[in-house]
Structure formats: structure tokens, C-alpha cells
């Protein structure tokens, strides 16, 4: 299975993960500071700043795009509960 590497900058941990994993799954397991609420892409609690490697995340769905817009999320931000890792290297931290 293809692998990817996600670095959680706030806790200084890089995790090798299988492609297809959502950011929140890794974040929760590793104890990074990305908090979450609904896990359904609605509440925007898990807003995450993608420092680099944004292209290695699957593009946001229409729903995620709308929630990001509604919450005036700056460019380069994603919902950790929605963002799916597809490969390569990604660096993130809580928004």
C-alpha cells in the first residue's frame, strides 16, 4: 500500500501513514493539538493549517469548501476530519 509522511509541527512528530488515511485519524492517535468536534465536516473545529504538501491531500469536497468559506478560513487550511492523505509529505499544525 502506498505510504505518505505527515508531520505535526506542534508536537514535532512525523508519522508514516497508509495512503487514504484522514488527517484526524493520525492526529488523534499521535496526540497532536488538532482538536475536533463533529468529525463530519460541519463544525470546523478541526481546522488545520497545511504548511506544506497541500497537493498531497485529496481536494476538498463541495461541503468542505463551503464550511471553509463560511468560517472565513484563510488559504491553505483544511478540515482534518475531511482531508485525506494521498501520498508524499505533508506538514500541518493546528489553525
Amino acid at each position, binding site marked *: 500500500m502506498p505510504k505518505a509522511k505527515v508531520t505535526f509541527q506542534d*508536537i*514535532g*512528530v*512525523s*508519522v*508514516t*501513514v*497508509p495512503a487514504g*488515511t484522514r488527517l484526524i485519524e*493520525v492526529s*488523534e*492517535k*499521535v*496526540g*497532536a*493539538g488538532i*482538536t*475536533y*468536534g*463533529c468529525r463530519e465536516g*460541519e*463544525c*470546523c*473545529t478541526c481546522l488545520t493549517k497545511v504548511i506544506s504538501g497541500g497537493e498531497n491531500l485529496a481536494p476538498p469536497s463541495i461541503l468542505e469548501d463551503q464550511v471553509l468559506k*463560511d*468560517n472565513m478560513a484563510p488559504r491553505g487550511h483544511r478540515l482534518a476530519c475531511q482531508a485525506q492523505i494521498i501520498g508524499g509529505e505533508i506538514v500541518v499544525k*493546528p489553525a
Partner: protein
Amino acid sequence: MAAAAITDSAVEIAPGVHWVGALDPHLRSFDIILKTANGTSYNSYVVRGENGVAIIDTVKENFADDFFRRLESVAKYEEITTIVLNHLEPDHSGALPELLKRAPQAKVYLSSRAQMMLKALLKPSGEKPPEYIPVTTDDTVDLGGRTLRFLHTPYLHWPDTQCTYLVEDGLLFTGDIFGCHFCDNRLFNDTVGDFRFSFEYYYAHIMRPFREYVLDAIALIEPLDIQLIAPAHGPVLRHKPRDYVHRYRELATPRLFNEARSEKTLVVFYLSAYGNTRRMAEALAAGAESLGGVRVSLYDLEGGEADIFTDLVEEADGLAFGSPTINADAVKPIWDLLSSLTTVNVKGKLGAAFGSYGWSGEAVRLIEDRLRGLKLRVPVEGLRIKLVPDAGELDACRDLGEQLARHLTGRVEHREIDMAALA
């Protein structure tokens, strides 16, 4: 002011503005978790402008008849141009599907986060959702000579909540904020019985976990000219309404003076049957202290009850829980404390677990699962030690404390791990 005992008719709370809610005097338990000694009310309001009528919130579904009877006493359905939903919880949106059938021309104004909830609420009716307009702070609706202005006040106590301000009259419709479960048909705060306990109890159980959002909302509300606050439960606050805003600010302000302002704080709670988990706690605390920059407090839960520690937990940056394992579980005082934390915000705090055990040692993992469930972050694997910790094992406890201190103070060394290795 004269008492205005509620009858079947609407009650005028300001010229052209009526209460059309419902009383539920026999309710004793609200949303399962909240007690109420004399019921509650579901407050809904009608605002009449020159060009239309606005309905602000509705009532719980089984009180819809009372709501419609009162509404019909002051407005015709065809006059309704505007429905404002300050909060979509079913006790305020229960009569909405029927209202939409009776006033299909009305436009619905709600917060952006309420949109998905509206669709979910209307699912059983099978009706197409009405025309709805997401609004935020400073968006307005002109009713003709009267302006409704919206305030984006999320998480009071759901993501969707907002307040609505009637500009020309200084009336603030607040949804659940400033509300309470207190049923009294004299309606107004200067005529009802003493509801101070209910007001504070409601804040403590409904709003306290969201206190940062309360303070954000208060910052939006304080500059307004407020003549009256019309919440969605309990008395209408027409006498000294600003006092209630001040009280909310007080309630939402941290309760403990933090003497360690510049330091991070770690609170270590433990229970120990034979002194082994206590020794672990002491070593962990010493390790956390040794790095500097972290103020550590050690509490034996046997010497206190869960409730009294809530303020401490709310203020702490990190929390560590030590429990022996008895009958394959953590001990009850730990669960009592962990189950009482839903009234404060612990999301994102650092969490850790440790404990000595005799033969199975499940407590640590169970506590860690609960901490993750409460949305604490648990970056350091907990420590389980069989029976009496020896010198090397106490060093491991000190190391756990040091690691927690590093996480609290941002001094963690970079690590590379494989997800498969994570629990």
C-alpha cells in the same frame, strides 16, 4: 411594573413585539442531564414591522398548539415574511415544520452552521427545505421601520447559535444565552419569583463548557443599547438587562487566580491502594518539575470529590491520571472525575495516564481512551507498572513527567514513527 400573567393570548413585551411561547411547568428533567424544579418555558417572539411580521424561534413540538394559538392572536400567517432561527435545537424548532406549512412565503434567516441542521430537522416532513438565508454579524432584515440585525454568536451552546437585535427598540433576542429553566407565568424578571439559582445553574451546565465563546458573544453584545433581553427559556429580562450581561462576563471569567501566570500547569490526580500508584505520581510530578517552566500540583482523589476539582481541571494546561487496576478497571473516583468534565472545556489539553497493577492492568488504557474521547491530546503513551515500582521504573515515571513537561512547554524533540506502531 405590573405582573403580566400569561393567558392563552400573546404577551406584549414592547410595542408591536409579543411573546408567543409556551409554558412547561411540569418538566423536571431537561435533555436528560439537567434538573429543573419548576419546569421551563419555550420563548418565541413576534415582531411587527410596517412591511411584514417576523417570528423569532418556535417551541417544542408538543407545545405547538399553545404557540400557534398565541401567534394567531397577534398576526395572520400571510403577514409573516420572516422566520429567524437563533438556535435549532428541537425545543426551539419543534413547531417549525408546521409553521413553514402555514406561512410558506416566509424566508428563514439562520446562521451558516445551522443550514445542515435545518435540512436534518425537516427530513421527516419530506418537505422541500424553505428558502433560507445564512446570515452573520451585521447582516440585517428590514421589516419596515424596524430592523433585525444579527450577531454571530456560535457555540452558545450549539454551533448554530446566533442572537438577533431589534435595532430601533434595543431588544435583544438571544436564544439560550441569558436563559434558564424557570417557569413562571408572570414572565418578566421583575415580576416572577426568585430565579437567580436557575440562571446560574443553567450557565454552569449549559454554557460553561463554551466560556471562550461566551466572552466573544459578550464582546459583541456589550456595545449595544439594550432595553430588554428576550431569551429562549425563562424570564424576559426587562429590568436592568445589562446586569445579566455583566453577570455572564463574571461567570465566564476564569474562577481561579493563576499565580503561575508565566508557567504551564500540570495537575496530577491519583488513587493508590498500597502506595504504588502514589509513588508513581510523585516521581512523575518530580520529573515534570525538574525541567522548569511547569507548575505541578499533586492531588490524591481519595481526599476530595470530583466536583471540587472541576475549577482546577478547567484552568490546567495538562492533566495526568493515576489509577490502580481493580477488577480490570480504573477505580470509581477516577471515573467520577472524568465523567464530571463535560461541564468544562478540556478540549485540546494535554492528557496522560499511569498506574500500578497486580495482574491485568487495564486501567491506564481505559483512562487514555476516555481522555481521547474527551478530546484531550494524549501524545505520550501511559505507564503501567506491575505492583511495586523499582528504581528503574520510578525513573521511567520521572521520564514520563519530563516528556509531559516538554509537550507543555514546546520543547519536544522531533520523532519519526509509523502509524502501525500507534495504539
